[in-house]
């Protein structure tokens, strides 16, 4: 077993617009671990812990990252957005609303990652094709829905957000 010196460190993170601090056992602690177990933000899910399923996706300065495969110390000073940070003042983000309206959420375990992936996609490409959507969420696994309603939800969100901007 690997031996390592106990070297607790206090980490400051900016999560969902708030400065937060967490006491880590060492520099090896992942971002997912900090979010879920130190900050109580359990909306971020972990299903594989090896970067294969996409459940733990969060946005770091707007870019989707697998929080199970990112060290918390590596994102110091960056803006982290988790699923808890999407709704503003009780008002759901249009993507969240589209997922609900389309029946894209069954067990819901993949939903936080899927919704954040969709947000990153639509910010970059407001009117994606079906194939572009599939390629973008191709690394996020879902066992319940067969993806069809998730794709429909992202299309619906694109349509609604496009209208809002126009």
């Amino acid at each position, binding site marked *: 077993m690997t031996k390592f010196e106990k070297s607790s460190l206090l980490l400051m993170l900016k999560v969902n617009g708030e400065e937060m601090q967490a006491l880590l056992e060492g520099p090896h602690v992942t971002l997912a671990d900090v979010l879920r177990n130190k900050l109580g933000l359990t909306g971020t899910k972990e299903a594989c812990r*090896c970067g294969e399923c996409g459940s733990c996706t969060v946005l770091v300065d707007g870019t989707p990252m697998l929080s199970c495969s990112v060290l918390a110390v590596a994102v110091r000073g960056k803006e982290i957005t988790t699923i808890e940070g999407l*709704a503003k003042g009780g008002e*759901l983000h249009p993507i969240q609303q589209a997922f609900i309206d389309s*029946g894209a959420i069954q067990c819901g*375990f993949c*939903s936080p990652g899927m919704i954040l992936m969709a947000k990153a996609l639509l910010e970059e490409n407001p009117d994606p094709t*079906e194939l572009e959507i599939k*390629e973008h969420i191709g690394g996020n696994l879902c066992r319940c*829905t*067969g993806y069809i309603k998730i794709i429909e939800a992202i299309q619906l969100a694109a349509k609604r957000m496009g209208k809002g901007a126009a």
Partner: protein
Amino acid sequence: MSATYSWKSEDARKEEEAYRYVGKSVPYKDARSKATGAAKYSVDIQRPGAYLGKVLECPHTHARVRSIDVSEARKLPGVAAVITADDVPDVKYNPAGLEYAARNAKAAAEDSVNDMTAVPRKSHYKGEAVALVAARDEETALKALELIKVDYEVLPFTLDTASAMREGAPLVHEEAGSNLSMIFDSFPGNRGDADAAFAQADFTVEGDLLSSRQHTMALEPLSCTAEFDSEGNLTVWVAHQRPFILRRMVAGLAGLPEAKVNVVCEHAGGFFGEANYVIVPFAVFLAKEANKPVRIEFSREELTRHVPCREIYQMHGKLGFTAEGRLIAATEDMVVDSGAYFNRSCNTLTPAMGSFSGQYALPVFRGVGKIVYTNTPGTSGIRGYGPPAGMALLSHLMDLGAEKLGMDRVEFRIQNYRFNSANASLEKKGPDEHEGSTPATMGLGLETQESVMRVAAKQFGWAEKSRRPRADGKWRYGIGVCDYTDVSGPQPHEMNDRQCVMTLEEDGSVTVSVNYADGGQNLLGAGAQIAAEASGLHYEDFRFLHAQTTGTLYDIGLGGNSGNFGMGNLLAVAGKMLKEEILKKAASFMDAESDGLDIKDGVIFSKADPQNTMPVKKLAYDSIVVQQGASEHISVTARYSAFYSPMAVGVVMADVRIDTETGDIFVDKLQICHDCGIAINPMGVAGQLQGGGVMGYGYALFEDLSLGEDGSVRGGNYNTYKLASALDIPDFDVIVYENPCPYGPYGAKGVGQSGTVGISGAIAGAIYDATGVWMETMPFTPEKLLAAMRTRTMKE
């Protein structure tokens, strides 16, 4: 592009016109909490002061623990408990047997084998737990595991059913005396003399199929937290489908009265088959010993080792026909690889044989299953629960029958339906009047089979595609059809009984206390639609207290399409009862007879004098707060016991393209047409069929938990176990077929698992149509197809 279509019979149209909530695609009841990350799953439970549990896995495939020394581990600071077989009751049990015993002690004794212990004295498969620790953190727990010294007697092992049944094979369970744990020949649908019937047949067809190790691979990792309070009450947080069965198991193991155990699950990150019994005893015994809350979470790799995969069947099927192609006899011989434990082997065989024997008019059937232990991880029932592989084999045999006679595969099937337009007895019959009626082959619900098939064929363009050339350069094209039947709740149907308490609150909303673990099926939403329809209140009025056994009434749990049918029927009964109670109370306030009153959109009105109204909200408030004398919280306790389990029927069609140079199989179109009775929530029905269909697609083409030469799971994470991604799914059309079922809640039948059942058969049939190759082992991969095509070419 995948599309969803709706087909409704005249009856369905008429009935749905009158409904305000049933038949509407309303958002799912708990979707908001899941979309915002607020929903709490078992894996999110963080109890203050909880210790972490870890498992010491045996490094051998089959080995007896000669001695185990845990003294050093116990001394390690930060370790609160170390447990071996010596520290748990020496009781053998079977979680599936407990389900049977819940209703039928005789069946439990005959059809179940008790062979599990909380912590075994030997490893029956590679990696089985031989000791447990609870420590304050992961580092300490892992250190403690290293300090445990085990002396193993390494035993020879057996990994497949053929070698396990050989004379002198290593015994997986010595006390059983044989690896053949049961010969199941008492399927209640066995009828007539098959050998005599085959002798009378003008022709017969035969075939084989070996199913694969499909794993549930639900996204939420399996975890359990157990905590005793100062009064000795135990709370267990774990994903579950059958809470009261689990409560009984835990109470039995821990030596507690049932009511001192509370099993909690608000949301589960997918079920697809009960799995928690492999982790719950660990957390409970560690929490008891440590006197602290203990949380265990399996890694994905641990999970695939310890959580059973789908039932594994080696099947041989034979059908006998008349010269005109009428089916007169069938046999299904199955060898079941149960893995290290018996578990649900018998439970899944009954529906497997039920589907095989109940699909067509069939006077003679014999099904026999040999259940065999091997030193491999366990098996269980997962989504589809028995039938999926058998339906693929049956479908292939029907294709062979049609091929012999040069008949169209669709028409050949239709002529063998119990009810078809050529058959004068098409009128709706009660269950007892059906030919060959037995609990497992009950023909209820099969009247729509021909219609479903014709709707499916028309939408798919079956006739046009049948005329298409089969070859074009390196490409081969083929289409396939698999019709299937599926239950609406388990059979025996007594396994689907439910109860709830429905209470009108002083604000006019309704609290329903009903045990239900949410795994994403939206049963609470569909239930609220049904209850709103039955009571005259609003969908939004219904709130559910569903997550724990304490405070809810005994419920058999979920499985085998039972949820919407059983719970839906329950909530229809409860909604109606609540309405009656409200109207009785209203009669005194409104100066009217209760039978002269009705409720619409939350307002009570007099049928004779529509101006005489009273909002339910006011009645509720006045009954509790305002009225003179004792407050009255209007509340009803409702019960529902399913006497029937009508068959849900469906047809899957597939259009495939094969690259003869590589063996690659492209599914250009997949279509499912499913008769769900009435769709309570059409969006939900389509979602279940899409999800189940894609799970079936993976089962057909690539999902298989690979085992090494020592029986160990290779990898076991999503990087080695392929799950369909958004890029892998085919164009998949869904036809929600509606025709009201007289026994369902507002005409609904089962749907949740049905999407999985017919996919393999349709894809395999299309591959056979394209290439003439029937692959005898699942999944149907390019490698196997290429090898089989080359063998054929060489023969030719």
